[in-house]
């Protein structure tokens, strides 16, 4: 399987010297490669969560290739930045980013969800370098990220912690326990990004268990809360790297579930539907 991955692994260091527009263009190229990889992995596995993978791709790409201080040669370096994908069902996007970033051998990607593959349908840190937490049950990533942010302070190593949650996932109460404690502690080394695609497995979030006004909720819990276009690499980069003081940062990233593939975008049935061979070809064509 050709992944069309560049031989030269893009890194945040490499991107930091580019102009904002060149950086965004480069991130856009990488994001397309991640999306193509996601489509191929799900085609190969005949399973997966394609809608959420495609909605979170630009957030993951901006973090892994523009922001996170990581070293694939030392994936457990004590002072590394931490990234936790709380919506662990979007593992295909995470694995694709980790492969492009040099943590996973790209040759493993076609084994996604196959018997005995290390690439489980939800990520496992004990099997895959670069994974920080075994997520899957919803509402677990943010509390772990709060612990990581406290550890960063206590240790004096001052790494940054980023966590991506789904939006439907915020219906789990454990998130708000964690939000309250992060706000109380003023953990300004912590950033949560909500992949706000407004769809959950069965229906629209607002028709199921309303989340809006979502930024107000985060603000009420003591966070700096902002909204952004979750597919705008330049805007995401600016928010991720903006200096913070005194409060954790909640970014409600407005996204399209299925972003980049016209017949998947914003359609609830594509939460975990698997495209046909014809649809795979169409999707890859759109993502060229």
């Amino acid at each position, binding site marked *: 399987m050709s992944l069309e991955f560049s031989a030269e692994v893009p890194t945040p260091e490499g991107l930091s010297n580019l102009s904002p527009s060149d950086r965004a263009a480069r991130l856009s190229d990488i994001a397309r490669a991640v999306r193509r990889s996601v489509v191929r992995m799900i085609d190969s596995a005949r399973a997966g969560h394609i809608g959420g993978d495609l909605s979170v791709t630009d957030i993951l790409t901006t973090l892994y290739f523009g922001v996170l201080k990581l070293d694939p040669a030392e994936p457990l370096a*004590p002072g590394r930045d*931490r990234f936790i994908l709380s919506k662990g069902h979007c593992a295909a996007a995470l694995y694709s980013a980790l492969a492009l970033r040099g943590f996973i051998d790209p040759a493993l990607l076609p084994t996604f969800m196959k018997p005995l593959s290390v690439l489980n349908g939800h990520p*496992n*840190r*004990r099997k895959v370098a670069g994974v*920080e*937490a*075994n*997520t*899957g*049950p919803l*509402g*677990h990533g*943010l*509390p*772990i*990220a*709060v*612990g*990581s*942010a*406290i*550890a*960063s302070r*206590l*240790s004096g190593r001052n790494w940054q*912690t980023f966590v991506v949650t789904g939006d439907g996932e915020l219906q789990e*109460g*454990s998130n708000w*326990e*964690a939000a*309250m*404690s992060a706000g*109380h502690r003023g953990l300004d080394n912590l950033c949560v990004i909500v992949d706000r695609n407004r769809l959950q497995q069965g229906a629209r979030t607002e028709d199921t268990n309303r989340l809006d006004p979502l930024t107000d909720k985060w603000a009420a819990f003591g966070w700096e809360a902002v909204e952004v276009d979750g597919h705008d690499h330049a805007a995401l980069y600016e928010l991720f790297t903006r200096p913070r003081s005194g409060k954790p940062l909640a970014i409600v990233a407005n996204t399209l579930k299925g972003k980049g593939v016209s017949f998947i975008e914003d359609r609830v049935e594509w939460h975990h539907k698997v495209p046909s061979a014809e649809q795979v070809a169409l999707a890859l064509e759109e993502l060229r």
Partner: protein
Amino acid sequence: MNAPVAAPPATFDCRQAFAETLIELAKADERIVAVCNDSVGSSNLGGFQKAFPDRLVNVGIAEQNMVGVAAGLSNGGFVPFVCCASPFLTGRALEQVKADIAYNGYHVVLCGMSPGMAYGELGPTHHSIEDLSWLRAITDLSIVVPADPAQTSAAVRWSVEYGKPSFLRVGRTKVPSVSEGQAEPFVFGKANRLREGSDLTIVVTGILVARALEAAEALAAQGISARVVNIATIAPLDEAEIIAAARETGAIVTVEEAVVSGGLGAAVAEVVVRHHPVAMRLLGVPGFAPTGDTGFLLDHFGLNRDGIVRAALELRG
């Protein structure tokens, strides 16, 4: 002249040994932090908080977040001791214990404080009689139930070195020491044979060990030789000691301050049926308790000398 009356043995709250050992270890090991849920007092963490104010992470009344935060602290290089009343740690945060700690393999010490029926009159919502059953179903999580202060202290030391997820059941019910004469009070994965015997074996854990020893004494007066085995490590179980008990004594009574569906008795039975089936009696808490203090409830459910003797006599028929 009256015969001298033996003074009752001194009894101890194991939380004190727990806290003293934790503070001692934390002085030398900066990785050790405590995480709690507004339970500084009930977990006896006041001294720890005074000595290491920055290393006491009190998340408030939020057990799911508490366990997740501990996972994140472990990810960040710390060794968290999560101190929380056992019913809420193991019940409210069970999925976090499974997914965040055990499945991740994070070196976190989950300390189920005041377990069993330690909260007596507060009732079944505050009792933790299900914890051993729930946690034994979680792989990659070791379960340790110290019986006295010496075992508690040794278990805390072990848990820091262990490097993997563990659960310590730390009692508040006052107990006498049962470690006298033991070369080592606690060795992970090893049972302590506290009394030799050939007619049956009483396999017991936690605060009920002293009562099992009393029962063995009473049985001896009736000419029955009862072995007493203290199981401080519920998982992984010392299977060799259980098999030896079945082969050499031919009958087993298990005693625990917990439901018997899935706890110590079930663990022992699983080994016995595989290797050397013998008759057994499983003593534990049969249901939600009525109102009463801990001592009353233990007696009410026959978790005392007479209840154990009765079960032993039934077994020996």
